[in-house]
């Protein structure tokens, strides 16, 4: 049992606190998954089983919930994420071309991560920043009114900056 990572890894304490807040009842499942994803960046089997055991829920239900919602991911993401908004306003202002430019530049498909695990290129339904359309985010920072011709440069600059500070 000493190999149980849930005992040694402090990040499980954060998930534990969330589950406690809901009295370890099933209605805290999605909040627990949010906590876990925030702590680990993704949801792996060990974590999902841990949540199922602690909340006394069937593993298949936990898995069903975790895979229903788009924000949860079972795969590790890249060190940095770029999310392209594909909402209507962005779409009619050329978001698809912006996405295509990024996919081509980093040789990834939307939802994927570069081979060096540095960048995940994701899509979103709408950030609600439609006035800035087309919009992307880089590690949570909103970048508005982007264009296919210049977006790759904007991302490259930011990637270089964060990699330098790291």
């Amino acid at each position, binding site marked *: 049992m000493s190999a149980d990572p849930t005992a040694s890894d402090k990040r499980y304490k954060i998930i534990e606190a969330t589950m406690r807040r809901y009295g370890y009842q099933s209605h805290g499942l999605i909040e627990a998954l949010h906590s876990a994803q925030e702590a680990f960046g993704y949801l792996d089997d060990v974590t*999902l*089983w841990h949540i199922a055991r602690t909340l006394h829920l*069937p*593993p*298949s239900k*936990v*898995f*069903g919930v975790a*895979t*229903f919602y788009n924000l949860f991911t079972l795969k590790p993401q890249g060190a940095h994420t770029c999310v392209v908004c594909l909402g209507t306003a962005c779409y009619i202002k050329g978001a698809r071309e912006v996405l295509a430019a990024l996919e081509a530049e980093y040789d990834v498909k939307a939802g994927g991560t570069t081979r060096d695990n540095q960048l995940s290129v994701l899509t979103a339904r709408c950030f609600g920043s439609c006035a800035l359309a087309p919009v992307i985010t880089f590690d949570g920072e909103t970048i508005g009114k982007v264009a296919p011709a210049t977006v790759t440069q904007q991302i490259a600059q930011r990637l270089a900056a964060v990699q330098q500070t790291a």
Partner: protein
Amino acid sequence: MPRTLTINGQEISARSDQTILEAAQDANIRIPTLCHLDGLTDVGACRMCLVEVAGASKLLPACTTRVQEGMQVQTDTERLRAYRRQIIELLFAERNHICAVCVANGHCELQNAGIAVGMDHVRYDYLFPKLGVDLSHERFGMDHNRCILCTRCVRACDQLEGAHTIDVMGRGAHSLIVHDMNVPWGEATTCTSCGKCVMACPTGALFKQGSTVAEMVHDAEKLAFLKAARERKVWNV
């Protein structure tokens, strides 16, 4: 309090807690179903049992709509028949239902539904998704090609066996029946190998190992028998 209503013009009476489907069954009026199974709770998912109710702005699922006094129900109009055929065609196009080589050929509710709605061909493009067959369980198998996502197995496992080994993962067209955390069925630690899911399956998606073409006969009535026996101590033999 009994309720009086008409179904297809025929006056019938029903208990106030009965659904339109139950009332119709008691009066020997057949309403087509796929996701309904006696003994399991209803989810209103397949939309085959939609009926027209006078005064209602929308079509209503007979399986989840309770009877009301004076209700006038139509179960077999031209419009409903057209919708039912479309729904069945959508299912045949969605996954790989190849009756000729299916274990459930001749004993399949989907195949029967196709006959009932008069389906002589499917107007939609076949999608040919790549789906797996799970033969890891020593007694049973699961063929996702034949699954119509009715969730009868999910409900049988949860409500009658109580194990909840089975659930649905993903969503939309990417929904998939999973065991535990999407492990091969034979490795699902919560599975009791009771076989109720296999009994519940309307198609050839769940089957007994060793069944070959047309050999898999499901035993769906067993579930209503079990429910009555377990919950009410009534053995309807």
